[in-house]
């Protein structure tokens, strides 16, 4: 789509574009290309000398068992968070979509956690499930469950998943509710006339009609787990215990900062960029076309 009525102007449009282009070039393209370039270099600890080493950083990375472990962790983490937060949010959204008097109140009550910073959400859940002072730790122990996310990797994973799901439900709820409200009532009424009960109507009418929303949310949730959960992981576990919650993004941070391995960290950044670009491309290609009825 293009405007037919436009202004003429030789310099003005460039002038208008300058602020955004300068900021984008300086803080986006320059660092991104530096990341690519750095991934082919080896730098000494002080950053004084660097040497071109081709693909060695990538080879070293792919020879590291920890890197595969972080991939698996990311996969487990993102599938758990996406599956849980999507299904819980869908359950709540279908209930809020019913003709209830208090529905608007419930809507506000469900969406505000969107505004809570991931790091803050992490701290809240850490406090509740803290092994020594947490409110839930004592009941868990009384039930004979030896809860300790500081030492047990699975417990730590469960804790970051809980915090991430808690925060993400709001977003998914909002989009599911909008999707549900966009489904024409007449279709559901037709189903009812044909004798389909509420469950049958949900699975054969509502759920298929929601599939574009679901797919869109799936991609957004995966991206969310990749990046926005950094604050949760850093606040709750710091990637531990023993790397059990070190996702790929967390490893970029940890290797570059704590390990000082900038070349390896840059190589990881480049791999991540490729993954994100692929995800975004999938979103743009398929959201509109394939998953629509």
């Amino acid at each position, binding site marked *: 789509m293009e*405007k037919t009525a436009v202004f003429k102007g030789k310099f003005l449009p460039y002038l208008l574009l300058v602020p955004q282009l300068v900021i984008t070039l300086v803080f986006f393209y320059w660092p991104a290309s530096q990341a690519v370039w750095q991934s082919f270099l080896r730098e000494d600890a002080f950053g004084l000398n660097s040497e071109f080493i081709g693909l060695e950083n990538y080879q070293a990375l792919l020879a590291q068992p920890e890197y595969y472990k972080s991939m698996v962790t990311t996969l487990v983490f993102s599938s758990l968070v996406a599956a849980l937060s999507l299904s819980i949010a869908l359950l709540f959204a279908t209930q809020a979509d019913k003709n209830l008097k208090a529905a608007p109140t419930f809507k506000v009550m469900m969406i505000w956690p969107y505004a809570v910073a991931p790091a803050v959400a992490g701290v809240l859940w850490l406090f509740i499930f803290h092994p020594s002072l947490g409110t839930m730790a004592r009941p868990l122990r009384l039930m004979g469950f030896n809860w300790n996310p500081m030492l047990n990797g699975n417990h730590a994973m469960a804790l970051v998943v809980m915090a991430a799901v808690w925060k993400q439900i709001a977003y998914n709820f*909002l*989009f599911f509710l909008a999707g549900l409200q966009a489904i024409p009532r007449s279709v559901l009424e037709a189903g009812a006339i044909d004798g389909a009960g509420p469950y049958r109507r949900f699975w054969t009418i509502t759920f298929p009609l929601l599939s574009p929303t679901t797919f869109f949310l799936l991609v957004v949730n995966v991206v969310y787990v990749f990046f926005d959960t950094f604050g949760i992981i850093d606040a709750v576990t710091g990637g531990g215990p023993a790397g059990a919650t070190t996702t790929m993004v967390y490893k970029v941070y940890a290797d570059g900062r704590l390990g000082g391995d900038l070349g390896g960290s*840059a190589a990881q950044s480049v791999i991540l960029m490729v993954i994100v670009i692929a995800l975004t491309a999938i979103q743009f290609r398929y959201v509109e076309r394939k998953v629509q009825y």
Partner: protein
Amino acid sequence: MVEHRRWNDILAYAILILGVFIVVFPVYVALIASTHDAATVVNGNMPMLPGSHTLENYYRAIFVGGSRASREPVGHMLMNSFVMAMGIALGKIVISILSAYAVVYFRFPFRQTAFWIIFVTLMLPVEVRIYPTYKVIADLKMLDTYAGLILPLIASATGTLLFRQFFMTIPDELLEASRIDGAGPFRFFKDTLLPLSVTTMAALFVIQFIYGWNQYLWPLLITTQESMQTIVTGIKKMLTTTDELAEWQLAMATAILAMLPPVAVVVFMQRLFVRGLVETEK
């Protein structure tokens, strides 16, 4: 709905109340913890009702800071967070409305190129390029400054796309009419486009304010002085002392304070928030 059964409504209420309980529970616990003294919080058997140390805790958190680990008082961190969030939100609105105006209302060489240069930034969040961006900021001597906190985070395409989309819906007749009235590009922008864009700007502001306020990784990296810390990064630092020393009641008071501004924005500007969220995503 088609059939209206009572048990159906009751079930819906039950599920939603359970949902609200899950959503509210962690914040409730934090709120309670922020009203007790350190000993009550640490013993692992904290009561579920408010204690009597509310004012003391919040006063200490905001104005004094922790006693055991020397920490910046939260009042100052709140200010830093506010400056950063406002800077990001307003900065994004200004640069993106200008660039969208250029892309939509002018024809010039490299117009498409400029648009794509901006568009690509949509795909790569700051997390994947943290160290190189850090280096750029260090080279520009912007560590520990507001500019360093703000500028890298306003380099993104969301705003431009949003305004572009909105400008496309404005009928061409408006431009033709103001042309007949003798208006140039500046007048048209100021008198016609800006007033029409107010809601879009407000919606973008709400989303970007929350985004800016909740930043974690970036401020963590580029602020080394405590005086530049934001509240979201500050909480974590209160807890990095050993567990016995961490003052959880102050940390929880800080968490509540850190949540208040963005949550208030969502609750009181719900319409704009929902609109901004839905529109910036597509």
